[in-house]
């Protein structure tokens, strides 16, 4: 099997994983399109694939998550630098009389108020990754992951009560 075929197989296996990361970032920022993010991630996975092949110590899923999250962070930062008016109104806490979809949208807006590292961490937490896996992807210690997740939960609670 050629390198290209191997890569396409890998991409197909991880399509769902990459898709959900794109969905997460596109839901938070209306200027980002999930499809464009998917393209950008695929392209950068292909570019860094030769480096990954030479590194047997790094797990495949860890590498995919790292590239995908870093590309999304980079893209959302580029969009932040361009002047645009946010479509959504300012969030002032979660109201009880909203539909599920609206509630989800409001939650995304709350997460948008976190910094980039916290946004990535909360995504991995919601994706049911273990603390060990999160630590590997983020490049921080396992104990630090626990502390940071607790802090983020508290921060989100405070933001939703504002």
């Amino acid at each position, binding site marked *: 099997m050629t390198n290209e075929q191997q890569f396409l197989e890998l991409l197909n296996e991880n399509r769902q994983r990459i898709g959900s990361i794109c969905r997460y970032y596109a*839901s938070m920022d209306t200027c980002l399109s999930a499809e464009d993010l998917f393209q950008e991630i695929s392209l950068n996975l292909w570019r860094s694939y030769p480096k990954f092949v030479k590194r047997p110590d790094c797990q495949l899923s860890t590498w995919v998550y790292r590239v995908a999250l870093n590309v999304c962070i980079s893209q959302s930062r580029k969009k932040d630098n361009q002047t645009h008016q946010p479509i959504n109104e300012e969030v002032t806490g979660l109201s009880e009389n909203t539909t599920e979809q609206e509630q989800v949208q409001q939650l995304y807006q709350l997460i948008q108020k976190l910094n980039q590292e916290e946004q990535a961490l909360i995504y991995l937490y919601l994706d049911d990754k273990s603390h060990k896996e999160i630590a590997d992807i983020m490049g*921080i210690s396992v104990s630090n992951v626990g502390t940071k997740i607790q802090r983020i939960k508290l921060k989100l609670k405070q933001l939703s009560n504002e």
Partner: protein
Amino acid sequence: MNDMDLTLLKQDIKAEMGSDFSISLPKKSWLKQHRNGISGIICLAVAVLLPTLLVLQMKQIALTPYNLGVITFTVVLAWYCLVKGIFTLLFQAKETEFGTSVHQYLITNAYNRLYFVYERMVWLWFLAPVLLATFPSFLGLYDSITYWIIASIVYLVALVSFSRPLWRKMKQLKKEIHQLNK
């Protein structure tokens, strides 16, 4: 924000997606994709070209105060271009390195942005006044009071308008780096 909200969010994130995406060639042009690399190479070329021109012209230049100003400016600009070229190429190399851990990527990115803020500060507080002061020697306007008045007003307006946002941006980035290192 409670566990119920988090469950809703989990469901939304895990919803079926990605199967309908097709992979195609990048939309961005080659020039746009490599613009940092290209500007880095241009800077290095300017850094080599300026001293070369200066050395070639040295014998013909009389050491008047005006010409000394031009020489100083050329040397400063060449030095700046050399540093800028090297850093821009390093930035280009790091920017496309997405395989590193998220934490490391964020720290590298923050330092890169801080470097670009420093670069703008150098332009505003050092290179721009040097440029304005040596510019008349190119046009023979050294004794023109009108030039000095206009140049001073333009520079003061730029200084007042851009100093504060740059300083704020620097503080914000330093805070971001400090938080990431915590």
